[in-house]
């Protein structure tokens, strides 16, 4: 079966006057199976949006190829555009002075939907994204979360097979974000494929079947979300919560402990093996520290370890 997305050796550079070209994507190869929710993670300037733009035909690659359900994004632009939906996050992208319904009616016409079909689908989608009661209000009165939901409804109007979501839940409150993710899962269950570009590790962990991590235009890894911790090796570790730094220092000199590091809200002791972890847990219990547990690196840790040296640099 044809992959939903197949990018091969994609490269995109941006020319600059009297300066070297900026390489936004470099030799990126990625395959996304049908019916998959694929997370695209990376810091600002990593190349996520460039990749989404190339796959959605709004940007041409400098070299390499990309196919959507077998159609080349450069040579078969028209076919690709009918198959994809592009959902960009943020407050912008809609006609603010028009109502939600009017917005959808216009955007539907760009996909050659007849008036009756677009009206029927707009009604159904507004209901589905929870905007039916506000459908006839100008978008300028909408909150960010409501706009995001309207963006998604717009992206779904022509019933695309593959959806590209770029930071779809940024700025949403937790309840709205959970509802949004539920909706994405429902749509996946209907047979759609998603490429989700995000900074939100919780979102990627909760939603994605597989994730790809890119930085400076390079694909660093692609793996099942559940297994992505393996990138850091099969390292044993024990997490625990304790206020006293001296306890951590004492733990660090124990034979099975490689090192102890401070994470945001807890300590992490890296051990030589499983037996070492058992001994560390026992040592903690002896000192009345009952918060210890064996742990595996999370997606966030993988992300931070892989690109965490970037700081604020882009």
């Amino acid at each position, binding site marked *: 079966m044809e992959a939903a997305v197949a990018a091969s050796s994609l490269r*995109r550079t*941006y*020319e600059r006057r009297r300066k070297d070209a900026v390489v*936004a994507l470099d030799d990126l190869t990625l395959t996304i199976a049908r019916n998959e929710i694929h997370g695209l993670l990376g810091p600002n300037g990593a190349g996520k949006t*460039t990749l989404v*733009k190339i796959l*959605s*035909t*709004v*940007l*041409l690659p400098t070299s390499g190829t990309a196919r959507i359900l077998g159609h080349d994004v450069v040579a078969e632009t*028209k076919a690709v*555009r*009918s198959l*994809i939906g*592009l959902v*960009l996050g*943020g407050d*912008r*992208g*809609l*006609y*603010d*002075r*028009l109502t939600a319904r*009017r917005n959808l*009616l*216009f*955007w539907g*016409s*760009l*996909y*050659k*939907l*007849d008036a009756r079909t677009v009206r029927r689908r707009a009604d159904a989608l507004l209901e589905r994204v929870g905007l039916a009661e506000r459908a006839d209000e*100008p978008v300028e009165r909408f909150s960010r979360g409501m706009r995001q939901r309207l963006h998604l409804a*717009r*992206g779904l109007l022509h019933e695309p097979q593959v959806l590209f979501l770029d930071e779809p839940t940024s700025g949403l409150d937790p309840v709205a974000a959970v509802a949004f993710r539920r909706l994405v899962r429902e749509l996946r269950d209907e047979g759609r494929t998603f490429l989700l570009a995000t900074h939100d590790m919780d979102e990627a962990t909760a939603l994605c079947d597989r994730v790809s991590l890119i930085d400076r235009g390079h694909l660093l890894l692609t793996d099942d979300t559940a297994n992505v911790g393996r990138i850091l090796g099969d390292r044993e570790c024990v997490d625990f919560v304790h206020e006293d730094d001296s306890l951590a220092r004492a733990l660090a000199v124990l034979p099975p402990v490689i090192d102890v590091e401070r994470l945001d809200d807890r300590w992490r002791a890296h051990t030589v093996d499983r037996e070492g972890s058992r001994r560390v847990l026992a040592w903690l219990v002896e000192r009345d520290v009952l918060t210890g547990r064996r742990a595996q690196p999370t997606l966030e840790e993988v992300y931070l370890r892989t690109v965490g040296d970037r700081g604020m640099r882009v």
Partner: protein
Amino acid sequence: MTYLTVVWRAFQLQALLSRRSPAHLLILLIAPMQTTSLLAMTLQAHRPDAVATAVIAPGLIGLWVSSLDYAGRVVPEDQWAGRFTPMIAAPVPLTLVVAGRVTAVVLVGAMAFGESWLVAALGFGRVLTVHNPGVFAAAVLATCLASVGTAMLMSGVISLSRARDVLQNSLSYPFYILGGIVFPLTVLPAWMRPFSHLVFLSWSARLLRDSVHGTAHDWPLALATILALGTAALAGGMWLTHRLVNLARHKGTVGYA
């Protein structure tokens, strides 16, 4: 669904946007003032032969302002508002959307014709008698069509320009002169006239005035020229819009975000 339907939907969209945007309707506020000024000067100078110019000029100015200012903003505003990217990602060519929207913008400008007529009649008691009403109606229609083509061209030129505001601010007055809107081209220096003949407004202004006075003897040529210049502008505008999209896809300038 035909491409014409897309143009119609884009027209409806712009009509709604213009109705909700007071700035788009400023032309309709300015046209009566322009008519008042021009008519007052004409009457004070005891030039009844120039009344037609004073009444027709605000309509032509309205069309030009709508083509230059408002049609020119259609694409840049979509770019600034982040609507350009999803629009490019849709299968329908952007040219059709722009064509529908500039048509609506131009029609708002065309309403200035009716306004100036009313101001002359109700405010000054001067009802313009048209000696060749058929030619006059055809001239108004051709002028509106040529304005749509020109608006498309201006939209492309302004969208591709890096100095949009400068361009929009500086292109209005020269075209009032080259278009012979407020005075006949015969008073211009001879070397300027060939340039004037490339501006559809010059043919429109003369034909409209001549049809009022009953002297539009060469109306077929004038009408054909207006339509030909409008068609050329439309073709140029469509090409520029297509080029805008291609450049944006090549250079990565689809959106400002």
